[in-house]
């Protein structure tokens, strides 16, 4: 069997490379038993909801079970495609995501490149440890801290702005024009150090001799980064880009939900919050499922096309 020849080193495999099916199961049944419970759990909690998406094509009636209702075809899709609230959420999602990728994709790369340039090993470790601390903090805490820092009456930022520039206090959290910058900035604050770990690992793996050769050729520090380091970590950068584009439509939903106020709704209502409000708060289950399914399908299309493009252009892909 091709399976068995692939891994000649697994225990006992080399003794009888061509075992029959029944011998295979007699020998390895324990491994299959181990897999049983987790696999059932996996199918129940990851795949049953996936199938539950048929609800988008059926009319949900309470008490009739999730799937025991009548077929309505594409009716819910047609409805939300004509719903201005959907298009507003769709636009907000795209703007917020693109803005976020544009700014927060390069930042960890730059941060990792700079970290690598720190001479003192101990200082570098220290900076790293502190920089990924925010990753471990709950979104609730991040937003709560933000609320206190940005508070118009007592927040640290307004006090600093007031005493340095004599500015009037700004109610940052409530003003629509500050919503996107706040979102993007807190994302940078939370995840820069964490994401940089991956790039830093890639940079550390670059062959030392390449740096030495570049040095002999008279490359400056900056030139070494541009001509040696960045090309060497390009594959990591591409993989991360694909993953980022794939999750374009699934923003940090919880953060947006926490930052949402009626006064910034014009910019802060995204697809996920729309699904949450129509689905769970107004119990419009089928309609919300249709919207959710739509954005999920777009996400899959995005990730597979980016993956395909990347495979064509740089030979890098995630599957």
């Amino acid at each position, binding site marked *: 069997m091709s399976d068995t020849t692939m891994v000649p080193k697994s225990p006992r495999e080399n003794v009888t490379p061509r075992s029959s099916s029944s011998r295979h199961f007699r020998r390895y049944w324990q491994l299959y038993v181990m897999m049983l419970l987790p696999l059932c759990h996996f199918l129940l909690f990851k795949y049953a909801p996936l199938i539950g998406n048929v609800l988008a094509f059926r009319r949900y009636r309470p008490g009739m079970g999730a799937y025991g209702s009548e077929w309505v075809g594409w009716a819910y899709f047609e409805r939300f495609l004509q719903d201005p609230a959907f298009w507003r959420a769709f636009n907000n999602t795209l703007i917020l995501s693109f803005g976020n990728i544009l700014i927060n994709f390069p930042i960890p790369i730059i941060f990792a490149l700079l970290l690598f340039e720190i001479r003192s090993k101990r200082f570098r470790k220290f900076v790293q440890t502190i920089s990924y601390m925010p990753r471990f903090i709950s979104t609730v805490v991040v937003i709560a801290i933000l609320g206190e820092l940005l508070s118009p009456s007592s927040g640290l930022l307004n006090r600093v702005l007031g005493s340095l520039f004599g500015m009037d206090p700004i109610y940052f959290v409530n003003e629509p024009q500050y919503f996107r910058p706040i979102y993007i900035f807190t994302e940078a604050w939370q995840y820069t150090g964490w994401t940089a770990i991956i790039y830093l690992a890639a940079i550390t793996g670059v062959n030392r001799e390449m740096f030495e050769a570049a040095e002999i050729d008279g490359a400056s*520090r900056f030139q070494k980064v541009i001509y040696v380091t960045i090309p060497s970590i390009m594959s990591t950068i591409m993989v991360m880009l694909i993953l980022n584009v794939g999750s374009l439509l699934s923003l940090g939903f919880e953060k947006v939900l926490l930052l949402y106020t009626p006064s910034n709704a014009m910019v802060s209502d995204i697809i996920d919050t729309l699904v949450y409000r129509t689905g769970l708060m107004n119990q419009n289950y089928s309609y919300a499922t249709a919207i959710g399914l739509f954005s999920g399908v777009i996400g899959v299309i995005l990730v597979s096309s980016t993956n395909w493009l990347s495979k064509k252009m740089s030979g890098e892909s995630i599957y």
Partner: protein
Amino acid sequence: MNKQRKYRPLTIGDVLINAFMVLVVLICFVPFLYMLALSLSSPEAIINNKVSLFPVGLNFEAYHQIFTYPNFFKAYGNTIFYTAGGTLISLFMSALFAYAMSKRFLKGHKLVMMLIVFSMFFSGGLIPTYLLISDLNLTGTPWAMLLPFALNQFNLIILINFFRAIPAEIEEAAIIDGLNYFGILQRVILPLSTPALATIGLYTAVFFWNDWFNGLIYLNTQQYPVMLFLRNIVNGTAMVGDGAGAADKSTIAMSIKSAVIITSTLPIIILYPLLQRFFVAGLTVGSVKG
């Protein structure tokens, strides 16, 4: 001395980079210092905007308040329970699944691997998941917090890769010594896997500790985790500073909010530096080579 030979003079570039990094450290750290200062300051100092990075008029009233507030203790206890229970269940399920999946010769191995990877990019969505949980009658029970998250695809892949890297000879020796696969997993593989288990254990624990949204949609007030308690204070849906007069309420609310932030975040901040030598390796194995 060795050090002398390695010495190169600091260039302007070095100075700039180091200065920038000091700034980064400050940006990451100052918000916590501010919260700590607020939680420890007197109401007068807060009202007059005197507090910046250090407590003014040292005062433990906020901590005294939240520790005598029954709901806070309840919520904190709930969070500890969800975190401990969730992490244990998750490690148990993941170890079993990943160990079997680390054997490429098992039939159906490829299919299951595909199922895992596909579900990373296409998930069930909020509403179908919500309806599933309520159809299973998990709503309003702690199981709604624990069960749905017992398996995480990224953690699984980290663990599978880790198990695969363990030399097969060790297992062969164990088989010759008469151990079956359950015995091998328990007595050979798991003890060798502490770094990987610590990594995904930390990820999982952080997830459960910080979760509030699932508590919001699945649980009732008595079962709320501490992050949801905090969110309700921030939202103004929960009352704080009951004993105080109306004028004092907002300043007390501020220091209480800060005290809740500090107490609910401290365990994680203490935990992660201890485990960081593990998770740095875990992250790079798990996400890039996925």
